[in-house]
């Protein structure tokens, strides 16, 4: 063999693998103890700035995406590759190596209970046993004058099981890399009845314009009797150039797919919508809604009052939308402003209604005027993802399961049988070898012995 490359030896060692696995585990533990990413904010505020800077420098608030964590994973991948490449040739040799049927050395030390003497002839017994061992082309046979040998093996592929698992980890890593480069994750909020074609990318990485639009036809919540949420559902329509291409309902656990992306029900909320509306209330009860416009007039018959909107301002004195009312009634003429954000204005300026009666929306007693919007509508919060790495990761997972099954539940078993004539009788000796499962091999030899003794046609 050629001289070993020390770098290669280093990367092939199981010691390195164990050290890396321990380091990755410890980093992961840190990642569960220290709040990560968005969750780190309140935690950082409680730390002194210098400590926070050090931790941030070490990327401890985003461990799982930090370069040093990714380097650890890359080293593990390299370790897996080199270690497997170093050992696969040996597995291949073992896999290819076909044993000769006549291995007399193996029979020198077999226990006496693995030997049976029978009255039948050598050839008859050999033929029967050969059939018993399995299909003809899989059984090795060698006949000599006074003795015959049979050999059968199964599960030689089991030497590759562990490399199958190693490969599966690399395949999954490849899937993750594909996903991180070619995929994206983002969010879109769509109000009921409206459509959107813009996805806000995660982590404030800008926006992505879609070449189709999504309309939220309806958002729907249902509750259990105890008040716990039962269903969140968005009825979506996917539109291309204005025409409907697909209609889907999206529920939690039931995303919709369109154009290689998946749309998940992630959140919801209410937003006020519609045209501004002037509401007239008496004793906290709404008695009238009036559309807002300059010159709009309406009456309050109970007081024989005529109300006119004389001014409509988008933002009066930095305090938001406001409407100026002029009211003519038998009691006289008054004017005052109605602010939409009157609650906040009162909170920020206590006593303002007494000081500036012009701002008091209840000046025309006992009526109270307020400015609002026609209604509120639900919006649905959709998570949008595209991850072309998913099929690759899934393939890796399937490969891993196959590998684990081979590693843990399959073994290479070889069985040798020697038959030799003892006068009129035939002596049959059975022995075997297994790379992992001595108990299973022993059971199989016992079954064969039983079948030999009882002249059974099959070993099971």
């Amino acid at each position, binding site marked *: 063999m050629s001289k070993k490359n020390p770098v290669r030896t280093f990367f092939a060692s*199981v010691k390195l693998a164990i050290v890396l696995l321990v380091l990755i585990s410890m980093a992961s533990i840190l990642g*569960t103890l220290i709040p990560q990413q968005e969750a780190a904010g309140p935690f950082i505020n409680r730390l002194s700035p210098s400590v926070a800077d050090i931790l941030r420098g070490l990327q401890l608030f985003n461990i799982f995406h930090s370069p040093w964590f990714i380097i650890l994973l890359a080293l593990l991948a390299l370790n897996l590759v080199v270690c497997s490449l170093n050992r696969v040739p040996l597995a291949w040799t073992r896999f290819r190596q076909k044993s000769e049927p006549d291995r007399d050395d193996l029979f020198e030390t077999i226990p006496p209970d693995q030997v049976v003497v029978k009255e039948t002839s050598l050839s008859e017994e050999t033929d029967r046993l050969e059939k018993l061992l399995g299909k003809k082309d899989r059984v090795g046979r060698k006949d000599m004058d006074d003795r015959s040998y049979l050999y059968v093996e199964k599960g030689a592929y089991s030497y590759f099981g562990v490399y199958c698992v190693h490969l599966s980890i690399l395949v999954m890593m490849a899937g993750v890399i594909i996903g991180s480069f070619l995929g994206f994750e983002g969010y879109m909020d769509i109000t009921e009845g409206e459509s959107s074609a813009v996805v806000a990318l995660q982590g404030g990485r800008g926006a992505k314009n879609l070449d189709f639009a999504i309309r939220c036809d309806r958002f729907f919540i249902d509750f259990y009797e105890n008040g716990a949420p039962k269903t969140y559902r968005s009825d979506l329509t996917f539109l291309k150039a204005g025409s409907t291409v697909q209609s889907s309902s999206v529920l939690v656990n039931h995303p919709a797919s369109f154009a290689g992306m998946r749309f998940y029900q992630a959140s919801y909320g209410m937003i006020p919508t519609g045209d501004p509306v002037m509401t007239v209330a008496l004793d906290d009860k709404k008695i009238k809604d009036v559309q807002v416009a300059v010159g709009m007039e309406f009456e309050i018959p109970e007081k024989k009052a005529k109300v006119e909107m004389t001014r409509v301002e988008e933002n009066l004195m930095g305090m938001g939308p406001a409407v100026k009312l002029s009211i003519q009634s038998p009691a006289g003429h008054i004017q005052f402003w109605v602010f939409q954000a009157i609650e906040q204005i009162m909170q920020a300026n206590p006593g303002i209604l007494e000081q500036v009666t012009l701002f008091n929306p209840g000046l025309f007693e006992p009526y109270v005027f307020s400015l609002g919007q026609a209604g509120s509508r639900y919006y649905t919060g959709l998570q949008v993802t595209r991850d072309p790495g998913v099929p690759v990761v899934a393939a890796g*997972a399937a490969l891993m*399961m196959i590998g684990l099954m081979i590693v843990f539940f399959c073994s290479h078993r070889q069985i040798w049988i020697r038959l030799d004539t003892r006068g009129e009788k035939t002596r049959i000796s059975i022995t075997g070898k297994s790379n992992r499962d001595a108990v299973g091999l022993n059971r199989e030899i016992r079954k064969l012995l039983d079948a030999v003794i009882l002249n059974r046609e099959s070993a099971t």
Partner: protein
Amino acid sequence: MINTVILSWTTFIYFAAFAFYLVRMVSVRERWGRLGAATARIGLFAHTAALILRWVASYQMGMGHAPLSNLYESLIFFAWSIMALYLIVEWRTKSRSLGTFVVPVAFLCMAFASLSPNISSRIQPLIPALQSNWLTSHVITCFMGYAAFTVAFATGLMALLKGMERRARTGDGSAIYGKNANPSPMNFIRLIPAPGILDELIYQSTVLGFVFLTIGIMTGSIWAHYAWGAYWSWDPKETWSLITWLVYAVMLHARHVRGWRGQRMAVMAIIGFICVLITYLGVNYLPGLHSYQ
């Protein structure tokens, strides 16, 4: 409800089974072992019946879901998995010594579920995130894995105790054996199977647990792919399940490649089980998507 009443009784039945197994170890009389085994079987039967009744009750209440949806139900199912697996191992190995070490874990789970004031035993409707067919397969595979790791852990404890015997024997020898030996702690240890058998049991249950944990993580990933839009999000529970998986992977490599056996494997089985407990219960104290309600 009738199922919670049966489950409270099951808790006491398991405690009785544990007590009988323990008396067997101390008194070296196999009839206590038979009593313990019979009690454990009765307990498992009642436990199974209660799970079925609870499942039926959830349909009668118009919710209709497997009893695997909150911390109470998961603890109950964990205990059930432990007892079912233990009784299979007892039947296969024809040894009742393991009962003294495994049954108390099942008992503690049941007692924790029944007695902790923060754990509600009511049948609750499924919130939208849990309304998935993957819930059942994910939870069952994970707890099968946890149960196997529990058996490995208990066997690990036995192996460490057995190791004390060997050390004691080198000091002061022959009195431990022989028919006239008095009941003593050494009798207790003597009834523990030979180290080779323990080692094999640790290995086999770890393998079983490892395969189930792998399937559990995979079914969880598939579920997360449909529910959260990402098959892996480094949520604390996901991360700890990975750490647990890595610890057992190290343990299996140490055995296959470096030939670790006996006491070292026992220690690894105990470390692994600590990780299982953190994955299962510890992460509820960390922020994340996965916590029980």
